[in-house]
């Protein structure tokens, strides 16, 4: 049965959980499909994750390969295809714990960067898993800054081949997924040299393992890079190439080509190269970041109504820890953020779809905006959600520290997202560069993209709020966010211009302002998130119950931001000290209001117990029973350890006294 402490939480919901779930999924039909996919996968024992916390790196890897192979069979059985509506839910059902994830990246890079001929040759092989692909860009000594890569590809006219080489230790490819043990082929990014001249970084398809016995090809050294904080199931690898020759046709040549005589030809816009990166960044946000935060909130909030500790009132039962204001203040803002970022993800998806349509019409204008938004939000959302998951973890006290809570593995996985697909600080700086351009254009009266017209709006100068209830008005708080973002962008522009006027070189001036530039980019993203949340709530007028609770969450998200960044809002007196006290009071009042719906709000994320894989977060709230039973299955209890016979026994039986 359900733990009564959890059951009682569900009786007081102010809205229909099922309706909220359907709305989050984008319609009841999507919910139905998702549940069917999850059910089909989770009822199959091969996909079980029950033992994953007990497994070694080798066992995890083997299980992931096994699942990946089995998945092909399953998809065939179920009639799922890569373009079908079910596909996106498969990853969710597996929680990403599966091998060959790079196969998609391998294929996408060929379809985007390869010619028709190359696509026709390679894509079918990869689709049928005749070859297993990887994507080798990052090197031991080089990451986000692509121009710095050291691997070389020298064109040899006499044999019509490229000779790929890893000239130094730091040039070794390092980190690519599926490369350590699985991949047979990989796309290698290398500096192209023709007749001694360097033409910059280009992609080459390189075979690294034999298709017969999987042994390494001549000149190739490859292996696993060793244990990481997470991703035990993935064989992130290293790759060293010593004079490895590939035919001229293996350079992906949609945009540039080396002709047989060594002539280098380019065609089309190079900017288009940004598009795959933009798409990947946006897909990272939803699968790798927002869903883990939703899971963490589900686990932490359910556990917080089951866990009782201390007494709030003398003589009463110990209180649920979620009834403590401090616990609410830890968890509920993270819940609001999970919703806020779910909506931002929808916003970015629309922006991307719109941009994509333009690009297909050969209009490349939206590219810089798309690039700036995907960079900034990737950085902001990953950073915010990573610390949010950690807050959830720590809010579960000692039991959160057990792997069986599910929280440590969610955390170690999500925090990798702050680094891959572009290091966050660098991404913020890219967004800042775009904002500064737009700000200067706006000041000069030139047109700017619609998403940033706020930079040019008229500013009232002072916040008009008169009492704490005014801070529950979206107009009041969005305007405060807008003002702060514009002020921060404006002041860093002024600072940069000052420095340049005083004779400082442009790049030095930039480095001296980077800390402020990052702040400005964050303020921009935060503002857009708040506005987008408020607009989403407005559109909900046909669902009054859901609209009401979403409005509370929107207010909480906005006021939490003001409360945590008070200095930025107080700085020029836009919000006065007295108004800040009002905002804080409203913020704290909201905690008690949302508290009542906390469990229904996480139930609406609709994760199965198998997806959560957590003793603390299960939907029946039988936390302690589950923890006890699961722990007994640990190999430390079921397998005999040699420690007693070998070390403890001599110790206890006092061979010591002989000393």
């Amino acid at each position, binding site marked *: 049965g359900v733990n009564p402490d959890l059951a009682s939480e569900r009786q007081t919901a102010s809205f229909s959980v099922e309706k909220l779930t359907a709305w989050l999924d984008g319609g009841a039909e999507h919910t139905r499909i998702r549940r069917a996919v999850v059910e089909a996968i989770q009822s199959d024992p091969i996909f079980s994750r029950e033992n994953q916390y007990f497994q070694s790196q080798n066992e995890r890897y083997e299980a992931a390969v096994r699942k990946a192979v089995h998945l092909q069979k399953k998809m065939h059985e179920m009639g799922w295809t890569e373009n079908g509506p079910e596909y996106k839910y498969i990853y969710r059902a597996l929680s990403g714990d599966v091998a060959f994830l790079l196969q998609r990246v391998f294929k996408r890079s060929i379809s985007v960067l390869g010619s028709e001929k190359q696509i026709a040759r390679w894509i079918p092989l990869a689709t049928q898993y005749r070859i297993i692909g990887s994507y080798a860009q990052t090197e031991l000594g080089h990451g986000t800054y692509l121009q710095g890569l050291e691997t070389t590809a020298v064109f040899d006219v006499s044999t019509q081949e490229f000779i790929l080489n890893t000239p130094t230790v730091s040039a070794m490819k390092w980190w690519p997924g599926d490369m350590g043990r699985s991949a047979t082929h990989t796309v290698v990014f290398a500096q192209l040299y023709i007749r001694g001249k360097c033409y910059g970084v280009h992609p080459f398809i390189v075979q690294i393992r034999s298709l017969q016995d999987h042994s390494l090809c001549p000149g190739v050294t490859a292996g696993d890079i*060793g244990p990481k904080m997470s991703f035990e199931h993935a064989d992130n690898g290293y790759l060293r190439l010593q004079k490895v020759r590939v035919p001229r046709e293996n350079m992906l040549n949609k945009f540039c080509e080396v002709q047989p005589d060594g002539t280098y030809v380019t065609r089309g816009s190079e900017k288009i190269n940004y598009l795959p990166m933009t798409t990947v960044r946006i897909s990272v946000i939803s699968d790798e970041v927002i869903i883990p935060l939703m899971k963490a909130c589900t686990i932490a909030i359910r556990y917080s109504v089951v866990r009782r*500790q201390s007494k709030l*009132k003398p003589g009463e039962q110990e209180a649920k820890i979620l009834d403590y204001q401090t616990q609410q203040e830890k968890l509920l803002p993270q819940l609001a953020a999970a919703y806020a970022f779910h909506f931002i993800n929808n916003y970015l998806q629309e922006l991307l779809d719109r941009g994509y349509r333009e690009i297909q019409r050969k209009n490349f204008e939206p590219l810089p905006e798309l690039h700036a938004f995907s960079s900034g939000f990737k950085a902001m959302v990953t950073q915010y959600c990573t610390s949010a998951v950690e807050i959830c973890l720590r809010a579960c006290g000692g039991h959160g520290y057990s792997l069986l809570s599910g929280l440590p593995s969610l955390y170690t996985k999500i925090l990798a997202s702050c680094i891959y697909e572009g290091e966050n600080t660098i991404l913020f700086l890219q967004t800042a560069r775009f904002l500064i351009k737009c700000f200067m254009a706006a000041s000069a009266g030139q047109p700017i993209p619609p998403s940033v017209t706020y930079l040019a709006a008229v500013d009232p100068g002072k916040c008009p709020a008169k009492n704490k209830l005014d801070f529950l008005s979206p107009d009041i708080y969005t305007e405060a966010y807008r003002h702060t973002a514009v002020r921060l962008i404006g002041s860093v522009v002024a600072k940069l211009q000052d420095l340049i006027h005083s004779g400082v070189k442009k790049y030095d001036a930039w480095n001296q302002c980077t*800390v402020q530039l990052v702040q400005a980019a964050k303020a921009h993203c935060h503002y857009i998130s708040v506005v987008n949340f408020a607009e989403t709530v407005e559109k909900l007028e046909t669902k009054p119950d859901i609209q009401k609770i979403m409005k509370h969450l929107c207010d909480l998200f906005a006021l939490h931001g003001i409360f945590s960044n008070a*200095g930025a809002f107080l700085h020029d007196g836009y919000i006065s000290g007295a108004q800040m006290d009002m905002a804080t009071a409203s913020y704290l009042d909201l905690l008690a209001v949302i508290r009542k719906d906390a469990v229904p709000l996480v139930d609406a994320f609709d994760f199965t117990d198998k997806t959560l894989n957590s003793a603390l977060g299960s939907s029946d709230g039988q936390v302690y029973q589950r923890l*006890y039973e699961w722990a007994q299955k640990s190999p430390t209890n079921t397998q005999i350890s040699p420690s007693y016979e070998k070390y403890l026994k001599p110790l206890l039986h006092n061979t*010591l006294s002989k000393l």
Partner: protein
Amino acid sequence: EALVLNDPDFQHEDLNFLSRSQRYEQAIRKSALMVMKLRQYGIADPEEIYWFKSFVHRGRPEPLDLHLGMFLPTLLTQATPEQQDRFFMPAWNLEIIGTYAQTEMGHGTHLRGLETTATYDPATQEFILNSPTVTSIKWWPGGLGKTSNHAIVLAQLYTQGQCKGLHAFIVPIRQLGTHEPLPGITVGDIGPKFGYDEMDNGYLKMDNFRIPRENMLMKYAQVEPDGTYVKPLSDKLTYGTMVFIRSLIVGDSARSLSRACTIAIRYSAVRHQSELKPGEPEPQILDYQTQQYKLFPLLATAYAFHFVGAYIKDTYRRISGDINEGDLSELPELHALTAGLKAFTSWTANAGIEECRMACGGHGYSRCSGIPDIYVTFTPSCTYEGENTVMMLQTARFLVKSYTQVSSGQEVTGMVSYLNDLPRQRIQPQHVAARSVRINEPLGLVEAYKARAARLVEAAAKNLQAELNLRKSKEDAWNRTSVDLVRASEAHCHYVIVKLFAAKLSEISNAAVRAVLTELCLLYALYGISKNTGDFLQAGILTDAQSTQVYQQVKELLAALRPNAVALADAFDFHDVHLGSVLGRYDGNVYENMFEWAKKSPLNQKEVHESFHKHLKPMQAKL
């Protein structure tokens, strides 16, 4: 140190490549060896044992921690002389290995909620121990799962039909000789955790398990043969141990953060990336302002926490003398202060270690960086020995009490004496420290932090009063103010740390060292202001213009500290083996050694992984 590092018996494979069982086995092997060597070398001083142990286990937990750190000391402080005769020497000789079983599955920081019972049976002169519910199962004690054969169990004492509260009992749990659990005892390992792989944290369930009356630790409270309960004299005494353990955590915060800083700063000097100036070679990433902004404030924080740890230890030593003479007057303040500082430093260090890891980019995420290990080992300190939020609220209780005393006209002393100035400031509100704050010298900044603490304590106390006027229940009012109360405690702790750091400067005789530490102190204080500008602006402690200057000065300090950054990290003097990091190596030969390290990964043991034959090949054949 050299004694351990050069001893071949303590060498082993890199722990990152071992499974949990193997790590436990290695730890047990080393612990057993360690005990023998300690006896062999005749090391007995607690401080020396501590250092020896920390080098043997390289700062990691080990299965005998609880035996050495809790079981033996508890016997010493709470056992009667007769009990010491029975248990202490066998325990000292490790015939008895013990642990300390307090926390239960459903109960942690709130001790009164523990459910385990010990019911006295005068007929047989025994206590009957029981775990009446699932939530009452002892859960987490280190060394309990596989190692120990005894445990000190905390249980609610029932005698003559009455509950007398929590008491400690010595409970044998495994058969001497076979190491099998005794009848009535269910014991095991609680499964894998975030870190602490080498520790067998355990569970313990007792069903009508009987122990003789003499197994209750009876130096203070006693149960007589007929069941009569004799009360202990004072309960304040237990404060002493808590203060001591929390002071160790403050020291641990400093050390763990220093280790992470050392790794991140050295690596940032080795790593080159991107370009600062067109056409020039890629610069060291430590030359980027954003990188300095991530790391240098943490370096300053690590230094600050070192001084705080030393201060608490000294104060504790000083007043333990008074305590032995029966003077407990300073204990409440120290107790309240260490609770808050334990929470403040462990929270900050926890976040700081993560920032260091993140500042190392992708390679920070690899176990070879050593930072993941530092993090997972350190992070539980936010929970154990008192959950941090609860600790902050304890400090707040003391602050509110002091504020109330001041309001009623009494003077308060010690670190909270700034509250004495509050009534005066209310008369002339314009004069609040403000306007005149000197932000370019440590003492000026101490004043600023003091003013902020005073304001936030006052605000929390007033909000609490307002809530009390609205509703009947004191507890409700307290709960509805608790977010404010935590903020007040944080501000108080922050002030104490800045104050201690600034005070330390005058003790440094070497001018060059003083100069660089002054820069660190300024950076620590100014960075803290820039992260909490709201508090300083709202209270009128700083003007808008000053808060802009604070920012500017932080940036200037980053540039000023840049040339000394590696030296400041080197000064922590961590040996490479202790650091356990490829990125943080003293010689900076990072990339070659990463490659060497990776080759040892378990996945690389065979050239072709067995998964190929088992899964990949059949699939390729079928498709």
